[in-house]
C-alpha cells in the first residue's frame, strides 16, 4: 500500500532537473556513509550494538529514499509511490518490520545505484550546466538524462503493488491449504468418533429392543432385562455424542460467547485460573477459533507446565482481539515441537491472526495472539465502516 504518492503536472524543465542534480550530488556523501553504516550495523546486530544503530539509520535511509522518490516523481511527471509495509507501534517492533520489509532491502540496493551510475548522470548534468559553452547541450540534454536517472530510481524504489499482492496471495494460499488440511483431519476424526461410538451403540440398542420385542410374551423377564440394557446403551451413546459435539462447537460458547466459555474452561482446571475477559460477541468462526486456542493453551498448561497459577486475558479494542495465557510453570515449551501449538497457529492464520510463544527454561510461559476482527453489530457499536454483517 503506498504510504506517500507524489504527483506532478508534467515532466520538469532543465532548470528544475538541474536543481535536483545538484541536490543529488550534494547528497552523495550522505548516501555513501549511510550505505556503509547500514551494512556494518546489519552485521553488528549479532553483537546487539547494531540494533540501536539501525534504529537511527533505517529511518534516515527511508528519508533519503523518499526524497529521491519525490524528485523522480517531479522529473517524470508521474507518481512514485513508496512501497513500505505499515509500521506497528513500538520502536523495536517497527525496527523488526523495517528490517524484514523487502522495500528496505531495495532502498539499500538503490543506494548502490545512487553512488555509481546515478551519481555520474547527476554530475554530468551539473558539469554541462557550469561549463557555459555547453549551454545548448545542457538545455536540451539535461531533462532526458535526468529522466533516465529518475526512471531507474523509480524502478528500484517502487515495489509494484503486484509484488505486494503476490506476497499476500502466497500467504493466503499457504494458510488456506493449512486450513483445508486441518478441517479435513477434523472431519475424519468426527466421522470416526461417530462411527465407533454412538452409531455402534444405537445399533446395539436397536438389537436389544428387537430381541425384547420377540421375547415379550414368551420370556418377559429376559425381555425386561434387554429393555434395561437398551436404555443404558442409549445413555452411553448420548454421553459420546456430547463429547463429539463439544469438540465441534461447545454449547457454552454458543450460549455465552467467549467471556462465558473461557470461564467455563477455567473452572475445569486443577489450578486457579485468573480470567480477565471483556470482549463483545464476535463472528462465530472467530469465537470458535479463539475458544479452541484458549482450550489448547490451558490443556498444555495442565499437561506440561506444572504451574501454580494461570492468567488468562482477552481484550478487544474495536478492531483486534488480543489474548494471552500466562503460567508460572517450568517453561521450555517449543512451538515447533508438538502439533498443539502448530494447530493454534493454523487456526489463527485462517483469520490473519498471529501467535507468539515465550517460554524460557524455568518459565514463565506466555502465549499471546492477535486476531483482527470487527465485533458483531448487534452487541457493540460499529467501529469500522467495513465491519462484518451480523
Amino acid at each position, binding site marked *: 500500500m503506498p504510504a506517500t504518492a507524489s504527483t506532478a503536472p508534467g515532466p520538469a524543465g532543465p532548470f528544475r532537473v538541474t536543481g535536483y542534480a545538484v541536490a543529488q550530488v550534494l547528497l552523495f556523501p550522505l548516501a555513501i556513509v549511510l550505505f556503509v553504516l547500514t551494512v556494518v550495523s546489519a552485521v553488528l546486530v549479532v553483537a546487539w550494538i547494531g540494533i540501536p544503530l539501525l534504529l537511527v539509520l533505517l529511518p534516515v535511509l527511508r528519508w533519503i529514499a523518499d526524497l529521491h522518490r519525490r524528485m523522480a516523481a517531479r522529473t517524470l511527471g508521474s507518481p512514485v509511490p513508496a512501497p513500505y509495509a505499515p509500521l506497528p507501534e513500538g520502536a523495536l517492533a517497527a525496527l523488526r518490520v523495517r528490517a524484514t520489509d523487502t522495500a528496505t532491502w531495495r532502498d539499500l540496493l538503490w543506494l548502490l545505484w545512487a553512488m555509481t551510475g546515478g551519481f555520474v548522470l547527476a554530475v554530468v548534468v551539473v558539469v554541462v550546466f557550469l561549463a557555459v559553452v555547453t549551454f545548448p547541450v545542457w538545455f536540451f540534454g539535461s531533462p532526458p538524462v535526468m529522466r533516465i536517472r529518475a526512471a531507474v530510481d523509480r524502478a528500484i524504489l517502487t515495489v509494484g503493488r503486484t509484488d505486494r499482492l503476490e506476497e499476500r496471495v502466497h500467504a493466503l494460499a499457504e494458510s488456506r491449504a493449512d486450513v483445508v488440511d486441518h478441517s479435513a483431519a477434523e472431519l475424519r476424526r468426527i466421522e470416526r468418533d461417530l462411527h465407533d461410538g454412538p452409531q455402534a451403540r444405537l445399533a446395539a440398542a436397536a438389537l436389544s429392543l428387537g430381541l425384547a420385542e420377540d421375547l415379550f410374551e414368551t420370556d418377559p423377564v429376559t425381555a425386561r432385562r434387554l429393555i434395561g440394557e437398551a436404555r443404558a446403551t442409549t*445413555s452411553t451413546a*448420548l454421553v459420546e455424542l*456430547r463429547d463429539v459435539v463439544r469438540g465441534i462447537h461447545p454449547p*457454552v460458547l*454458543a*450460549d*455465552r460467547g467467549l467471556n462465558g466459555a473461557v470461564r467455563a474452561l477455567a473452572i*475445569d482446571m486443577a489450578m486457579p485460573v485468573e480470567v480477565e475477559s471483556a470482549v463483545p460477541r464476535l463472528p462465530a468462526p472467530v469465537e470458535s477459533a479463539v475458544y479452541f486456542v484458549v482450550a489448547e493453551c490451558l490443556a498444555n498448561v495442565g499437561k506440561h507446565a506444572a504451574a501454580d497459577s494461570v492468567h488468562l486475558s482477552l481484550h478487544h479494542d474495536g478492531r483486534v482481539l488480543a489474548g494471552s495465557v500466562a503460567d508460572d510453570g517450568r517453561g521450555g515449551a517449543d512451538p515447533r515441537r508438538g502439533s498443539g501449538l502448530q494447530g493454534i497457529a493454523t487456526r489463527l492464520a485462517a483469520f490473519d491472526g498471529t501467535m507468539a510463544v515465550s517460554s524460557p527454561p524455568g518459565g514463565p510461559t506466555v502465549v499471546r495472539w492477535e486476531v483482527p476482527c470487527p465485533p458483531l453489530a448487534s452487541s457493540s457499536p460499529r467501529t469500522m465502516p467495513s465491519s462484518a454483517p451480523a
Partner: protein
Amino acid sequence: MPAARLVLAEDHALLRAGLIQLLEAKGFEILAAVDNLPELQRALADPRADAAVVDVRMPPTFTDEGLRAAIEARAARPGFPVLVLSQYVEQLYARELLASGEGAVGYLLKDRVGDVTEFVDALHRVAAGGTVLDPSVVAAVLDRRRDAPVERLTAREREVLALMAEGRANAGIAQSLVVTEKAVAKHINSIFAKLDLPTDADDHRRVRAVLEWLRV
C-alpha cells in the same frame, strides 16, 4: 396431599409429550407446558405454580434462556423449586444455579429422565427444598481436585460423596450402594473428618457443606 402443580418448559415436542405423560402418571399436575421463553416467563409468574422443570435451551435464541428464566423466577420468588434439564451440564451453570438461592434447585442431564424412579425422586427432593446435582458435575469436580483431602478419600467414600452431592439422604445412599444405613453413616463421618467439615444431621445443610467444600 394435593398434587404438585408444575410448569414444564421443553421445546422438543416428543420429549415434552413424554415428560407430560411421565409426570402425570407419577401424580404431578401440569399447570403449563411451554416451548419458548416468553410463554415460560408468563407461566413462571403464575402464583399457583409449585415448581418448574425447565430445559436450558429453547426458542427464540436457542442458547441459555431456560436457565436465565429459572434464575429470574427464583429471584422473584425466593425458594421457588426449579429443576433444570439439559443435554449438557456446565459447571458454570451449576454454580449460577446454586448461587440463585438456598436449596430447592436441581440440575440434571436429560438422559436421567430415562431412569423414571430416580428422576421422579429427584423432582420430589427439589420440590421439598433439596439440592440435586447431576453426578457428572460432581465427578468432574472430583477429577479436577488433586489436593490432599480428596486423595485421602477411599473409592467408596468418593461414591458416597457424589451421592450426597446429588442430594440424597442416608436411606437413598444406602439403597443405591446396597449397604446398610449404618454403614453409610460411618462413611459420611469419615468423609467429614477427612475434609474437616462440621458434622450435621440436617440433610440440606450437609449437602450445602459438601458443595461449598467442592467449590462447585
